[in-house]
């Protein structure tokens, strides 16, 4: 007869990884490798853009991911104001931070594309200027989050800034139509003549999916880091309260 072995004590994960994120991370790595292969080997130069079209396979996906993350930030911000949810507040923070990274990459990679196509890294064009403004607004959002304040006040302040910043996204997107712009029109929705098609279209779609997955993977990890930080702060506050109680009890016993 075998003696039943007691189950080991439950131990939480020792990192921000889980089975789901590990699988997603592996998919992202394979996806990035395949995207690189398509961008540099399978597809050829564009009839108008030449080889600089290969930069578009990074530029368009990063800005699309940034837009999605910033819209998600606004959604979580509204939910934070409505339900006073810590989960939504931290999710909004994670979305904004990864969104800033993606939009920063968009600006840098776009500047390189501009140097190849227009002969200048930067021009005060409507699309470029509004995108830079959007980037600065989300940097401001992260700065507001860093200001010393009670968690509830910080959540409310940053949610308002997040919602306000998201109002600029349609302006950025439509800037090429509303103002005379050097920047080309919408590539994916077929407003560029000639339309993107064939391998170029497939590569662009593939890169958009892969970068979206990378953004999701990064956001999940960043959210978990923020969650751990929040838990650590609570543990610190609890410990401080216990310490104060112990001091108080000690004084009373001493009397």
């Amino acid at each position: 007869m075998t003696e039943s072995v007691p189950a080991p004590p439950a131990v939480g994960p020792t990192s921000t990884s889980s089975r789901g994120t590990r699988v997603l991370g592996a998919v992202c790595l394979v996806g990035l490798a395949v995207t690189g292969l398509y961008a540099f080997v399978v597809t050829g130069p564009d009839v108008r853009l030449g080889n600089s079209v290969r930069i578009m396979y990074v530029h368009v996906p990063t800005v699309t991911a940034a837009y999605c993350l910033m819209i998600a930030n606004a959604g979580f911000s509204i939910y934070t104001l409505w339900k006073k949810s810590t989960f939504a507040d931290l999710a909004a923070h994670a979305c904004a931070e990864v969104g800033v990274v993606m939009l920063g990459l968009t600006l840098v990679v776009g500047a390189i594309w501009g140097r190849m196509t227009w002969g200048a890294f930067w021009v005060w064009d409507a699309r470029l200027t509004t995108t830079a403004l959007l980037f600065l607004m989300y940097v401001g959002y992260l700065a507001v989050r860093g200001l010393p304040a009670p968690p509830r006040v910080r959540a409310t302040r940053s949610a308002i800034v997040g919602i306000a910043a998201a109002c600029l996204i349609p302006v950025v997107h439509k800037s090429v139509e509303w103002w005379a712009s050097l920047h080309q029109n919408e590539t994916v929705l077929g407003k560029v003549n000639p339309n993107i098609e064939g391998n170029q279209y497939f590569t662009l779609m593939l890169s958009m999916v892969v970068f979206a997955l990378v953004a999701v993977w990064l956001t999940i990890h960043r959210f978990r880091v923020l969650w751990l930080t929040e838990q650590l702060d609570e543990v610190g506050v609890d410990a401080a309260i216990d310490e104060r109680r112990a001091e108080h009890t000690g004084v009373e016993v001493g009397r």
Partner: protein
Amino acid sequence: MIAAITTNSWWLIILAWVITGVVLAWYAVATIRRGRRLSRQVPPESRRWL
């Protein structure tokens, strides 16, 4: 004109991809390392993921 510029600018194309790869890799590694460090300090019941 554009084709002439792009033919001689492969290094800019590579630079764009390298910057993207390095920034994303650096951010991912920094986030994961920070998560590991914090996980050691937080009680197990507070770090359960789906």
